[in-house]
């Protein structure tokens, strides 16, 4: 016999007992900002924040080749637009590659779901041109393409653009740690290099 239902019922009963007579809490105020000021240059801000967190920023489709640098094998989601596959690298579509296969690639090229200017955050939700989570994790270099209409100023504007129940990864700069003397150092387990390609139109 499993003790599970008992634990569930007991914890719920403890909660109800603890809250006996507590009533309802007031409705939370919502006075905070949900967007930036209308005159904010969100693209410029996104670039500033990306660079601040040690990501490299490139402009235009043609810069994808340069962003990939000297990567020889580049994994891509199977639905990545053909015209993004630029440069001399071998593009390996992810059709269920093994971990070892992924570990053998030099870089990954994807799109994204949204980008937040104020914090320099790129958001992935495994939607179009993004692929599953492992492909943006195992390779040491991530090149991500951001289209102009995917850029928003504020986090509150980005969340509705995501599929809330799809696996999400929010990325702000390359892998980093603050564990040594609370100073930020880039490069631990995630991709140590993050290149962002901005498409203006």
């Amino acid at each position, binding site marked *: 016999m499993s003790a599970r239902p008992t634990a569930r019922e007991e914890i719920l009963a403890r909660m109800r007992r603890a809250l006996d007579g507590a009533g309802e809490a007031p409705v939370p105020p919502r006075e905070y900002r949900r967007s930036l000021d209308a005159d904010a240059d969100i693209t410029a801000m996104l670039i500033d924040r990306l660079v601040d967190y040690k990501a490299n920023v490139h402009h235009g489709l043609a810069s994808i080749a340069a962003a990939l640098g000297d990567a020889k094998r580049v994994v891509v989601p199977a639905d990545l637009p053909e015209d993004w596959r630029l440069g001399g690298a071998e593009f390996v579509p992810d059709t269920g590659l093994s971990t070892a296969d992924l570990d053998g690639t030099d870089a990954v090229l994807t799109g994204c779901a949204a980008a937040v200017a104020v914090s320099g955050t790129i958001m992935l939700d495994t939607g179009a041109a993004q692929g599953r989570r492992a492909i943006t994790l195992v390779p040491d270099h991530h090149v991500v393409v951001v289209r102009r209409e995917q850029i928003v100023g504020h*986090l509150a504007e980005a969340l509705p653009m995501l599929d809330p*129940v799809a696996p999400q990864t929010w990325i702000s700069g390359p892998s980093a740690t603050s564990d040594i003397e609370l100073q930020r150092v880039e490069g631990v387990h*995630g991709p140590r290099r993050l290149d962002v390609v901005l498409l203006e139109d």
Partner: protein
Amino acid sequence: MSTRIVPAASLIPADAPFPKAAKVALGMPQLRKNLAHATGTIRAKRANVAGELDDWESLRDTASAIKADVQHRLPELAVEFERNATAAGARVHWARDAQEANEIAARIVREAGADEVVKVKSMATQEIELNEHFEAVGLKAFETDLAELIVQLAEDKPSHILVPAIHYNRTEIRDIFDQKMGDAPKGLTDEPAALAEAARQHLRRRFLSAKVAVSGANFAVAETGSLVVVESEGNGRMCLTMPRTLISIVGIEKLLPRFADLEVFMQLLPRSSTGERMNPYTSVWTGAREGDGPEDVHVILLDNGRTGVLADEVGRQALSCIRCSACLNVCPVYERTGGHAYGHVYPGPIGAILAPQLEPGRHDDLPYASSLCGACYEVCPVKINIPEVLVHLRQQGPHQAGERAAMRAAKAVMARPRLWRAALKAARIGSMPWRRKGFLRRLPWPGSKWTVSRDLPVPPKEDFRDWWKERQR
């Protein structure tokens, strides 16, 4: 040259009363230097990025109110989370206490055919001592967060919520890697980047081959059944993505009503904890997704004393804590003693109100480990009024008999103006021998607790009341 590192936790007695343990920590100059340096760094960073947002106070008000709402609707939200997570393919378990949570986790590991797990940094698993339990039943848990790895290799205990190895500086960390890692590169320097690289190499194969991972969660969204893990290094992503089985141990207070509530908390948490506008990586997952990440997904909802905290009208605000550590970093007591002296997995101001509530009857000395300076309340992103709860807990807790008698006597005098005036006069007369000097330098116990570092002024000859009476004539 590599110096043998003695784990700080082995020197600072965890079971001793706070003042005693604190005294030991105060006598460790390197520890104090490391703490002062690290907390000073992070204080400035936090203040900068919090100052960037012109609606910071509104965000705090909202976060505080959302958490209060969650506490008031906890049964309903927990069941809603369970329903949605289950529908998305997760298995939800409930654990009344640490023992039950550990047993469930160990059973899942065995059923997955594994005898070791990789771990994402998690306070809940520290709290239930999952690693120790696993070891006792023949399983092995490998910490993968850099600071947790340092602490585990050093055979030490965490001394900070966010940065468990905050009490070590880079040179000491190099020495720990050198001596304990086994595969540390030859000639490892104390450059933080080199140390991070050593950790990457050490853990990479383990990440790519692990069958089971154990995590906590920063948030559990009731509306969607999603869990959220906030991290920096990518070790979290590795654990949450690569293994086939994922076990997440989540305190019931981590619930949020709606996915959109993240727009509040994900502004407050990174800015308050690491002083960044956003942490490098945030993972959100909902049950299991075919072809992407773990197929065998478990959530263990943990009580372990939380419902007891919930029952205290004033004290329950401690359950709003999002484990950012801002209160530790600004606390003048924590800065000088470090975390081990608190003798609990949650140190600092938040620990001083959480530990005695989670484990009633233990840690009664912790609510006194504060000068009530209020710096913690000022920075808390969810506006937990820590000084208020500290005073509240002092008022609940037991009192030492001698102190109680002294306090009662003081009250008896102060409640009667005539007695009070007589006492003032008596003090003036009694202190006459020291009047010329103006102060006392050495008093017997318990006055010695004061005069150990401070002189005590003696009452002057004339008092205000005489002066006032004189000029009223």
